[in-house]
């Protein structure tokens, strides 16, 4: 299978289109016959990272690099960055605004969900220079 790369622009505070990049990725993987568990894990992680970008990041991109044996999702924003990545990884910790919490976001479960559902996760962030969340998923089902 040839590798496929796609990039989707994600806009800060755009709740109307939030989640659409992740839906595109999920539909792409389904069309390529990846096993349902892998599609589910990528969908969860992509969505969490995409919503983090919408709520906390500046504008940015969600990119996917699809190969037969592994999928890499990179979510890169140009926002303010994360002050303390270790603290942000703790379940329950959130800096979400009250209006986002009322919508059911900001439970402090996003990054832990990504950690739990990806095979590798790397966060690179510097205050003032945005955040890069890299997620790797290995295809152990080999349906493709």
């Amino acid at each position, binding site marked *: 299978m040839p590798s496929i790369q796609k990039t989707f622009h994600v806009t800060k505070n755009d709740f*109307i289109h939030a*989640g659409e990049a992740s839906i595109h990725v999920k539909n792409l993987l389904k069309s390529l016959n990846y096993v349902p568990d892998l599609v589910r894990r990528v*969908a969860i992680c992509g969505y969490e990272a995409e919503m983090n970008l919408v709520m906390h990041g500046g504008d940015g991109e969600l990119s996917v690099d699809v190969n037969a044996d592994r999928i890499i999702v990179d979510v890169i924003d140009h926002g303010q960055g994360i002050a303390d990545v270790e603290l942000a990884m703790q379940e329950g910790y959130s800096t979400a605004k009250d209006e986002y919490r009322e*919508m059911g976001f900001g*439970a402090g479960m996003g990054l832990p969900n990504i950690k739990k559902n990806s095979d590798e996760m790397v966060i690179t962030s510097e205050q003032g220079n945005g955040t890069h969340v890299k997620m790797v998923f290995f295809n152990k089902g080999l349906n493709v």
Partner: protein
Amino acid sequence: MKVRELVEKFDLTVVAGEAGLNRDVQGGFCGDLLSEVMGNAGIGCVWMTVQAHQNIVAVAVLREMAAIIITGGATPAPETVDKADLEGIPVMIYPGTSFELSGKIYADL
């Protein structure tokens, strides 16, 4: 059970996504924190929530849910209806609580 049968049995009001009424209901999930729902809801479930904004549709699509039921008297925003119609995700409303409805559905599935 099909979503359509659930609608008839529990007197739910369909407000969007009628194209998906023949989906199979394989389980249920109650939750209002979207990350908790994303992380734990099962494929083919019917999701009961008080959230009525448009972002619930993306969660339902990504988790391949059968349908969303908005409980507690909330009504969906117009953007929620538009998105659900586009994605073919049925959205119903139920005036009572998620607790009450989930008990009825649990007993019936």
